[in-house]
């Protein structure tokens, strides 16, 4: 068998940060259903529900703000299966408050996780992808990066930063058949949305042309597509999946 055929048989090696719930977990299920091998990372290491067959699924503890933990997570995957071929950089946190009340610490913590954390995992993943002359990186942004979100200056800034990170990295590694793209979810039915509160969720929801909130699976399917062979010529793209909320961003 050629290397490509072996990959097809065993599935690709996928890492999803923030994969224990929400969009990340939906991605894990999408890739597992396709026959890929999936490692999810989270700060707790505990996954909600049963994601699927254990020989194709790993749950790793990794705080993306800690370079040593990032290194350890990648090493674990490499020892189990081999180098990561598909990275979904999804881990993110919120520390919502108005700018006037926002501490340096609340700002830095969100930037460190949601932006610098993506830099850390992408850098580590791409180093091996370059050797293989192929790879897929998808970063999970947010509509708040484009339309703003009162109380989420730190979160929106980090999510907007991903676009510059993705496009620069895309330019650097395009010659190695590695693509780097950004998916921009709108409102999605997740724990993070629940934290936003019912009042603000309803206020947002009334502005969505589709008139409803997304299911995590609807975001996962688009992320999955961007990692497919069919999406091989898409790189540096910013793809909204928001029911029309931020149309024209």
């Amino acid at each position: 068998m050629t290397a490509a055929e072996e990959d097809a048989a065993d599935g690709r090696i996928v890492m999803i940060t923030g994969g224990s719930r929400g969009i990340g977990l939906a991605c894990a299920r999408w890739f597992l259903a396709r026959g890929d091998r999936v490692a999810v990372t989270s700060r707790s290491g505990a996954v909600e529900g049963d994601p699927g067959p254990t020989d194709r699924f790993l749950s790793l503890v990794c705080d993306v703000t800690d370079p040593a933990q990032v290194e350890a997570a990648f090493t674990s995957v490499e020892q189990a299966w081999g180098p990561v071929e598909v990275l979904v950089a999804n881990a993110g946190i919120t520390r919502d408050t108005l700018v006037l009340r926002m501490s340096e610490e609340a700002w830095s913590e969100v930037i460190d996780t949601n932006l610098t954390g993506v830099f850390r995992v992408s850098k580590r993943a791409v180093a091996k992808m370059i050797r293989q002359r192929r790879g897929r990186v998808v970063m999970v942004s947010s509509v708040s990066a484009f339309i703003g979100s009162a109380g989420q200056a730190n979160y929106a800034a980090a999510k907007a930063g991903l676009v510059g990170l993705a496009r620069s990295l895309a330019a650097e590694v395009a010659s190695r058949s590695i693509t780097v793209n950004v998916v921009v979810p709108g409102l999605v039915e997740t724990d993070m949305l629940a934290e936003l509160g019912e009042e603000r969720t309803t206020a947002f929801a009334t502005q969505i042309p589709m008139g409803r909130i997304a299911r995590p699976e609807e975001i996962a399917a688009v992320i999955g597509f961007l990692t497919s062979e069919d999406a091989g010529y898409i790189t540096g793209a910013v793809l909204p999946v928001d029911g029309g909320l931020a149309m024209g961003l």
Partner: protein
Amino acid sequence: MSNDETFEKFRECAVEVLQVPADKVTKEARFAEDLDADSLDLVELVMALEEAFDVSVEETELDGVETIGQAYDLITAKL
């Protein structure tokens, strides 16, 4: 390790990373013109050399490194 052995080890890294025939990896060979290597190839080579020789190279040290010989000298100076 003799100088010859050291260069041979260096050459193996270059052959693997740059995917060029061993006889093209001479000290006079220029990365861009002779080996068709771009900036990313050079970074990749440096990372492979750091691993193979257990040394660490700073970004600033790479300024002006245009030939195999210059890269070789940079690495061997750290051994």
